[in-house]
């Protein structure tokens, strides 16, 4: 059966709410799925237990950490292997991606949500999350314009090099 992205979205949204209502991933509310916060809870919990530090985690993760990100990696890996899509590859400079990951986590935690939890918070009726969503869209527009600009610049440079080569 082919899964459409709409169905995947509906199922993920339903699971996010079910996590809170059925599996008691609470408090805080609207915390069923969050990639950034759940990743933060997991690493901070591990660090706290390894070196006895006291890094903050959400109330639900104090006793035992949420394992969402582990589940996502296992699920995606299973899907990749089952469909023969697993392949070691490098798309962009790993150093550059590492820096982006670092920055994305910091800004996500300032906002208190990743891209998924912000939608979950909107579904929960959080007005501040809607302001955050508008800010995210403006950030995406700025990033997309930057990508367009840098692609154009690259194209121009290549033209110059071609002409130089011809001359």
């Amino acid at each position, binding site marked *: 059966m082919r*899964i459409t*992205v*709409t*169905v995947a*979205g509906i199922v*993920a*949204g339903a699971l*996010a709410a079910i*996590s*809170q*209502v059925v*599996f*008691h991933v609470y408090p805080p*509310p609207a915390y069923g*799925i969050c990639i950034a916060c*759940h990743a933060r809870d997991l690493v*901070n919990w591990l660090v706290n237990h390894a070196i006895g*530090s006291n*890094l903050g985690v959400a109330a639900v993760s104090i006793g035992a950490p*949420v*394992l969402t*990100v582990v*589940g996502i*990696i*296992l*699920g*995606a890996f299973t899907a*990749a292997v089952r469909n023969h899509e697993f392949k070691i*590859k490098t*798309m*962009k400079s*790993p150093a550059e*991606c590492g*820096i*982006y990951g*670092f920055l*994305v*986590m*910091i*800004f*996500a*935690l*300032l*906002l*208190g949500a990743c*891209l*998924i939890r912000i*939608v979950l*918070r909107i*579904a929960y009726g959080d007005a*501040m999350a809607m*302001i*955050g969503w*508008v*800010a995210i869209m*403006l*950030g995406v527009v*700025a*990033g997309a314009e930057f990508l*367009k600009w840098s692609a154009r610049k690259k194209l121009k440079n290549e033209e110059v090099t071609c002409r130089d080569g011809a001359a």
Partner: protein
Amino acid sequence: MVQLEVLLGTLGAGFIIGYLAQRTRMCFIGGVRDYYLIRDAYLAKGAIGFLIGALIVIAVSSLFTSVPGWPWIVSKGLLPIPGAPLSSVASTPLWVHMLLAVIGGLGLGLFSVLAGGCPLRQHVMASDGNISATAYLIGFYLGAIALTAFILPIIVQLLS
């Protein structure tokens, strides 16, 4: 036991979402980006579906069981749902919440586009064997420790 429920619940929900996201390339940042750049709504449908799915389940379960604080805007006004490090500090004024939402949102949107996908998508790409996405995840997890251990105490000090 409640803790076991949380462990297994999040692991299972994560597994299903990871599986579906790998099959459909679901990415919320990609939804906004593709629609803005090439008017392609494929990925945006995932985000809209998520909103609908979450809304229906929350609304239906509020009929049978307690869904604390739902709908939030009615019970708590403009205050954000806790979860951000500073939103758990009760004395944080509203304008700080708003500033954090705007700064956090702008940075999250900008750097996610430059990285080529939202955090969920990066986890899925790393599971596909993508070395760049794996490097992203290392930075991502280090960022969590850096924020809670070093950056947050500075912000709290500046505010007080």
